[in-house]
């Protein structure tokens, strides 16, 4: 260690904006409590924020992202390894903690963006992590150039070695100390050409798979701290309700129960900056004692202002709302005139329910508060938000809050909110002890930021030749921005209806409007948020137009998309939407399912396509319905997500997205009755099981030279409409309300 502490070493940091910040700091200053000691072990040397080289030339790469199953613990280090010219098979990856620090120019994150949302990890890393790897490589080459007294340009690198023109190879380990004393270049280092890639584009398995299959991977819920007590909460089941009275006599008799106290909920109507609901905390020696104690509680609740809310009332409210004017989201041409001139106008309404995230690993938090610092360990999607929440509730400066992200048992958007972090802090403050907060499945299903509920009314005007002359999309929904402070400035329809989504820009007359509905249920993003929410309506309706006008559903879509060109796209995933790329995935998908072949065996084929966050996807299913039994014989997913970093990872996201899409479309809905969520287990919120799912999802990834778009969310929005369209083809029953199976059962 002495060599390391004496020496000055280079810190290559990335500012929060993603710009490369290069500075020289003394190593001693870096050995602060914020940097876990395990990142500064003895026989190794750090080169920048992400790279260490051990004495045996093993390269250790830091993974900055929140691993929620989307594979960033593998794919982001691949970007660094590529430019560093590390031997991927010998690389070890370590999860980095949250990198908040206060620099000379104010707060910054030494690792750059670390959150997981909007499928941005790869697009961000494509810019800055490759550069970080390239700078580290440049330093090593420069060190070799000095050692050999040769110009930098004459040297090459390969698999963790700098290569002399005569073929002599020096391992990075022998160069790293010298490299760490060299000033990095002032200008960005040129990056590799794709033809030079050795890691990017090659299939890489999950880097920590061995730990997972042996039970040694540590998830947030697996984290323990000496002295931490387990806390569970009995939360008020009424939206914005409160605790009227508590009888905890029986609870206190349970062996192991230490404390019982009330935790207040947020003030009704205020933004959700802390916890989600009022309740009674039971703090105990272990989880079982806490759960037994909770079961023994007798609590009288005071229902809040939403005591009357129900699914039926919400549906009625939506139908009523659509009679109003709404807020214009986008308006092209003159839809009213198009309606007058139309030979025919088609109209249909589609309904999508509230959804819970139901991450397999429920929300949890391990928090230790001390007078001058705090430690949080757990699964997150938004460590920046968690840090802010802890700072707000404790008054601690954020640089004194250490946040260690663990592998997360799913995210799907649930962990973008940090209500459970806040709840743990509130309990820990009251208990005066470190707290390991645990949520059960019923807690999780009843207290979430749910995917919004919506009623979509779509109309299309047709001319004499059955050409679509106008398209109206009216969306009545519970806004996703409800009581979320950071989204206060956003228009109410944001997160529910995207101005430039298909078929905007493809029809001369367009009328898109949003109608805000009132509900007390908290809302938030759910995997590919607004796209799963409205693609079902749009892509089902296109199918209906095709049927009504006796056109082929693929041809109709291709006709609408027209020639390949880029249209402006103001939403996330823009600034452009390429009609040709969407047409290409659709065409390939139709070929793969043998679209033109007539089925005579009771099977039906359905197709749909959608643009999500910069990626293009199409799904096709071949199904049959026997009584109430729906069978999916084939499932095809074709995507163009730009250049692929990890083909195995993209395949996993598309298989998983498709299965998630099927599971959700078939069976899942959160409903309210008397202002309370009705679902409480996998019995009434039935995530799909293996037997209900297709044996295989045939994934086709179109080769692309475009910038990578990420892949976490593109594989889901076109699933529900393709499935509903297939069911129509097999049965002539048009399902316009999700989830599909209850509706199909009602209609058959």
């Amino acid at each position, binding site marked *: 260690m002495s060599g390391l502490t004496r020496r000055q070493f280079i810190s290559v940091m990335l500012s929060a904006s993603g710009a490369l910040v290069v500075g020289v700091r003394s190593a001693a200053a870096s050995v602060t409590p914020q940097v876990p000691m395990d990142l500064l072990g003895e026989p190794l040397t750090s080169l920048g924020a992400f790279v260490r080289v051990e004495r045996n030339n093993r390269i250790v790469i830091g993974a900055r992202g929140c691993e929620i*199953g989307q*594979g960033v613990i593998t794919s982001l280090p691949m970007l660094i390894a590529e430019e560093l010219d590390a031997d991927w098979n010998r690389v070890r990856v370590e999860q980095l903690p949250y990198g908040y620090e206060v620099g000379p120019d104010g707060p910054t994150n030494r690792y750059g963006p670390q959150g997981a949302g909007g499928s941005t990890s790869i697009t961000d890393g494509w810019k800055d992590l490759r550069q970080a790897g390239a700078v580290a490589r440049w330093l090593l080459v420069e060190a070799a150039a000095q050692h050999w007294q040769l110009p930098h340009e004459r040297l090459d690198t390969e698999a963790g070695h700098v290569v002399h023109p005569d073929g002599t190879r020096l391992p990075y380990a022998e160069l790293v100390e010298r490299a760490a004393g060299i000033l990095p270049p002032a200008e960005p280092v040129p990056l590799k050409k794709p033809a030079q890639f050795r890691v990017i584009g090659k299939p890489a398995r999950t880097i920590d*798979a*061995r730990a997972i*299959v042996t039970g*040694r991977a540590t998830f947030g819920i697996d984290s323990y701290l000496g002295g931490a007590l387990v806390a569970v909460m009995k939360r008020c089941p009424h939206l914005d309700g409160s605790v009227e009275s508590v009888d905890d006599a029986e609870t206190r008799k349970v062996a192991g129960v230490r404390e019982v106290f009330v935790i207040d909920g947020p003030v009704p109507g205020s933004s959700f900056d802390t916890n989600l609901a009022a309740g009674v905390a039971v703090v105990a020696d272990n989880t079982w004692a806490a759960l*037994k104690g909770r079961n023994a509680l007798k609590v009288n609740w005071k229902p809040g202002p939403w005591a009357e809310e129900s699914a039926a009332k919400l549906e009625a409210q939506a139908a009523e709302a659509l009679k109003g004017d709404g807020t214009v989201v986008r308006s092209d041409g003159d839809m009213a005139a198009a309606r007058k001139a139309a030979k025919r106008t088609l109209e249909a309404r589609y309904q999508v329910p509230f959804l819970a995230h139901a991450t397999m690993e429920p929300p949890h938090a391990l928090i230790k508060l001390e007078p001058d610092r705090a430690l949080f360990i757990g699964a997150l999607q938004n460590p920046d938000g968690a840090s802010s929440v802890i700072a707000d509730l404790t008054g601690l400066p954020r640089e004194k809050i250490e946040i260690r992200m663990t592998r997360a048992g799913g995210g799907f958007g649930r962990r973008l909110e940090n209500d459970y972090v806040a709840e743990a802090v509130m309990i820990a403050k009251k208990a005066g002890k470190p707290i390991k907060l645990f949520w059960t499945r019923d807690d999780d299903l009843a207290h979430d930021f749910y995917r919004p509920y919506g009623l979509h009314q779509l109309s299309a005007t047709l001319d004499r030749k059955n050409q679509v002359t106008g398209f109206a999309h009216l969306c009545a929904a519970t806004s996703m921005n409800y009581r979320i402070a950071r989204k206060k400035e956003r228009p109410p329809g944001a997160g529910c209806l995207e101005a430039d989504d298909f078929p905007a820009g493809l029809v001369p007359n367009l009328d898109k409007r949003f109608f805000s509905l009132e509900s007390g249920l908290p809302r938030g993003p759910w995997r590919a948020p607004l796209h799963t929410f409205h693609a079902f309506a749009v892509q089902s309706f296109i199918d209906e137009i095709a049927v009504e006008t006796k056109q082929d559903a693929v041809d109709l879509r291709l006709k609408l998309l027209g020639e390949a060109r880029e249209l402006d796209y103001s939403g996330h995933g823009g600034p452009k939407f390429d009609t040709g790329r969407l047409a290409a995935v659709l065409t390939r998908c139709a070929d793969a399912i043998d679209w033109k072949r007539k089925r005579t065996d009771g099977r039906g084929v359905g197709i749909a396509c959608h643009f999500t966050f910069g990626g293009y996807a199409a799904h096709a299913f071949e199904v049959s319905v026997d009584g109430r039994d729906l069978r999916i014989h084939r499932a095809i997913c074709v995507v163009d997500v730009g250049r692929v970093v990890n083909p195995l990872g993209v395949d996993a996201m598309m298989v998983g997205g498709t299965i998630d899409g099927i599971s959700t479309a078939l069976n899942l809905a959160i409903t309210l009755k008397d202002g309370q969520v009705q679902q409480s287990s996998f019995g009434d919120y039935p995530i799909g099981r293996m037997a209900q799912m297709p044996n295989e999802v045939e994934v086709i990834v179109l080769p692309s030279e475009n910038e990578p778009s990420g892949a976490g969310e593109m594989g889901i929005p076109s699933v529900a409409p393709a499935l509903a369209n297939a069911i129509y083809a097999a049965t002539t029953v048009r399902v316009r309300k999700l989830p599909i199976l209850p509706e199909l059962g009602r209609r058959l």
Partner: protein
Amino acid sequence: MPQANAKVDKEAAPAAAEPAPIELTINGETFRHTGAPDMPLLWYLRDVLRLTGSKFGCGVGQCGACTVHVGGKAQRSCLVPMSALSGQAVTTIEGLANGDDLHAVQQAWIEEDVPQCGYCQAGQIMAAVDLLKRKAQPSDADIGQLTNLCRCGTYPRIRKAVKRAAQLMAEAKANEAKSADARTRMHDGKPGEAKS
């Protein structure tokens, strides 16, 4: 929380007022539980022994994330109280491999790159091992009998991995038989000496 180091727990003598100790083996080691007899095995494994590979997913036996083997059969450990385990042998995901040699199912899981978030996979693997004990060459329908939930949608890769594991196990068995056969021949075909 009891800082129950496994060794300490094993040797701890029960206090007079406490319930009768429950002795069981977990991954081949003997343990004595002196806490609440109604504590589910899952929480004993996790909170007491810190064997956290078995996961909580629902607490009511629906999801299978907590699947372990009791007496060689798959069980949902969230539903099994410690009181039912006296004298029983439990295997968890941590005890499945033979030292550094992974079980064929674990190996297949890595080769097929099954895990996404990975949270349910310990339970999936324990359920698959149980299935392969009963059906050495499971059909698609047999694999469909696995009821463990996966929220990430890894089912198609689980199917592939189960089939690959079946193949790996069949190959291992064939190799074993072959070498046993070779040994037998070396000893003039006297079966009794094959074990030497």
